[in-house]
């Protein structure tokens, strides 16, 4: 199936690159916490638990030749957030980067928003490949020249230099969130963005840091009555007045900012009635939505709960149009997963460029590609063993019970420490970035 961004049954995925330390001893600061391609796909940003942002750039020199694979190389690394201490509550504020969102490119520089639990920062990443030389009043090393020794004047000129990529914080949006920020989303108007924490959503203007508007507030008057929190939020890709937010009870609310200043009242509520035959004490926990993403077209949205991925048509509120099981074999293990806290893992999901395939992560370093048009799904693995250059990834199978066939792995052998929570898909090409605990894998479509 031709077409950029398509993921039809003809697509075979090959290993391209892996970034990060090889050894199994994972430093906590290196744990990847977010992955995001920019709007052109040329840049790939990762954030980690240590508060650092690493940006990779696609090597475009050989792109004209279809056989050549484009590689991503480190473009810029900077410390985005530092650990802080809240003295009033005697609690640390983690520097872990929860989300990165790129702004659409307007000029030569790139801009991204990065956030930890409490503070959002706007970073400007700019290149410098020339520098001025020939100043009249200062030497090349910066020392001032004695003006009495100057006998001639010259015009400084720009000379090429080694490429330098600088990241500088342009805005710091702080002190607006009492609870932990879980989402940021840039509006299609390119002027505003939202930030969502567990109980509130704020609207910011990119230029203004000392003020934000609260647009959703679900905090009850008495915290003892708290039963539901916000888990994710996103602006519609084309309608600048529309955004959605998901909850821990498995609902998604769509709000229209034109309706009122405070969007506590939703304009649409997406909720699927519970299946009574599957009811258990864990039903609510596994229905909690960990991620919500609009399709590129803006017609659909995808939600990820613990066991499944659901595609919703924005015009139909009472049930999703498609449901895909990610790892249904875990349903009988929910008690154990509750015990070891894995049931609270927040998996993300993403669309491919033309909205035909969706991807999400699982345990044992498995990730799932769900083809909506072909109605096929495949489980792949990100592992060092399958990391030879251009090695085609073999589909993996999990045996839920009974006789285990050859090449299958049984549920009890799965490693629940190896979880793929963060994945990203290039907006135009079949290139995917998959984050294991501390490594970033880049896979590409096999070209024949």
């Amino acid at each position: 199936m031709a077409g950029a961004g398509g993921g039809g049954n003809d697509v075979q995925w090959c290993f391209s690159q892996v970034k990060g330390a090889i050894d199994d001893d994972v430093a906590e600061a290196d744990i990847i916490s977010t992955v995001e391609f920019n709007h052109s796909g040329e840049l790939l940003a990762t954030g980690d638990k240590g508060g650092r942002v690493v940006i990779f750039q696609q090597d475009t020199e050989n792109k004209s030749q279809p056989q050549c694979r484009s590689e991503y190389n480190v473009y810029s690394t900077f410390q985005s957030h530092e650990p802080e201490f809240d003295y009033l509550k005697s609690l640390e504020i983690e520097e872990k980067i929860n989300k990165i969102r790129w702004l659409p490119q307007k000029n030569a520089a790139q801009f991204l928003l990065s956030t930890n639990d409490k503070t959002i920062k706007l970073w400007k990443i700019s290149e410098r490949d020339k520098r001025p030389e020939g100043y009249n009043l200062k030497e090349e090393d910066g020392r001032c020249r004695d003006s009495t020794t100057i006998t001639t004047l010259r015009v400084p000129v720009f000379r090429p230099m080694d490429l330098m990529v600088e990241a500088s914080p342009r805005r710091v949006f702080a002190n607006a969130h009492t609870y932990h920020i879980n989402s940021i989303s840039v509006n299609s108007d390119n002027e505003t963005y939202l930030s969502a924490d567990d109980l509130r959503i704020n609207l910011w203007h990119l230029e203004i840091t000392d003020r934000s508007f609260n647009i959703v507030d679900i905090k009850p008057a008495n915290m003892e009555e708290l039963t539901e929190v916000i888990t994710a939020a996103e602006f519609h890709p084309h309608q600048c007045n529309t955004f959605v937010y998901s909850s821990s009870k498995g609902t998604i609310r769509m709000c229209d900012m034109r309706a009122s200043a405070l969007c506590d009242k939703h304009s649409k509520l997406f909720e699927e009635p519970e299946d009574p035959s599957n009811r258990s004490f864990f039903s609510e926990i596994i229905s909690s939505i960990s991620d919500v993403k609009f399709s590129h077209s803006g017609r659909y949205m995808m939600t990820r709960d613990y066991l499944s991925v659901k595609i919703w048509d924005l015009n139909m509120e009472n049930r999703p149009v498609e449901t895909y099981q990610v790892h249904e074999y875990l349903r009988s293990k929910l008690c154990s997963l509750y015990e070891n806290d894995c049931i609270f893992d927040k998996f993300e999901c993403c669309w491919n460029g033309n909205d035909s395939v969706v991807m999400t992560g699982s345990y044992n370093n498995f990730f799932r590609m769900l083809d909506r048009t072909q109605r096929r799904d495949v489980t792949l693995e990100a592992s060092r063993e399958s990391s030879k250059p251009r090695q085609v990834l073999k589909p993996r199978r999990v045996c839920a019970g009974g006789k285990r066939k050859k090449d299958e792995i049984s549920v009890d052998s799965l490693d629940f420490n190896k979880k793929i929570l963060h994945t990203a898909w290039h907006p135009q090409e079949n290139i995917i970035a998959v984050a294991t605990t501390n490594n970033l894998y880049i896979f590409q479509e096999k070209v024949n």
Partner: protein
Amino acid sequence: MSACTLVSVSTVLGCHSCSRIDMFSKGTKRKFSDDGDEMLDESLAGAQVSSSYSLQRQSLLDMSLIKLQLCHMLVEPNLCRSVLIANTVRQIQEEMTHDGSWQVVTEAFCGGSQSPSERLVATEVLCRSREQDAEPKLFSVLSYEGCREEEVVADETLCSVSVSDTASNVCLSESARHCWERDELVDADRDDETCESSRLGPGDDEDDDDEDDDDEDEEVDIDEESPRDNPKTMGQVFGTFEIKNGTPGPDSALEELFSDVDASYYDLDTMLTGIQSAPKMGPYDLLDSLAPSHGPPSIGSPSSCRSDLNELDHIMEIIVGS
């Protein structure tokens, strides 16, 4: 990270059997009825299955309460996770109330309509009678905080589905009982000693003497001052997420200032009035009535417990306001 291996667990809890309610009600009524002990084989089997279900439900409840109590980290805990666990606790409590298992235990001793306070006596007697078997309740849980806390309940209860006498009937915790006794003007000292000795009794049987003795001593001291600290009410659990804003009025600011301070006396009032007015306990009161854990909890490595004890000291300092 410790290895996360799946424990092979009976699927009773996770299952969707609609008949579990029927099984439970059938078995329970037979078991606790005044009609006598004649139990037919079928109902005996039914009672065993339903007991295993209630055992597992109880262990899930215990596990959830432990998870909620472990909020005293250096970093602010995850609010979403806390809310989901609290909702699970509420669900279990609602089901137990609905199934009558909340009242069942008291009826076994009182056998009839009694006032709520008398019902408390029954449960208190029930607890006391089980002292020899039961592990130290609240505070032993706290002492293992930071150690592999899941081991406290998981291995014994989730894996073993045997029906035993130390069935996990709900009863008030020692701290709640403690407060109740004080209010009833029972000789506080004598009761303190009774409680303490009963608590220390099983504690002395522990393998790791040093840490546990220190722990027990510490807990005993703390208990005399503020018995209700550690099983914080839900308001206190969620209350730690509040920060002091500049704008709110003086009352709320004061409230927030004291949110970490021991509010045990206020809790005492609300608990008692709550009991007088309605026998049904609120979902968050369950935090105060952690049922006894079953087997001897396994202790993690001494070194990790020691560092966690330092953390514990630090936390207790903050709470007690020393």
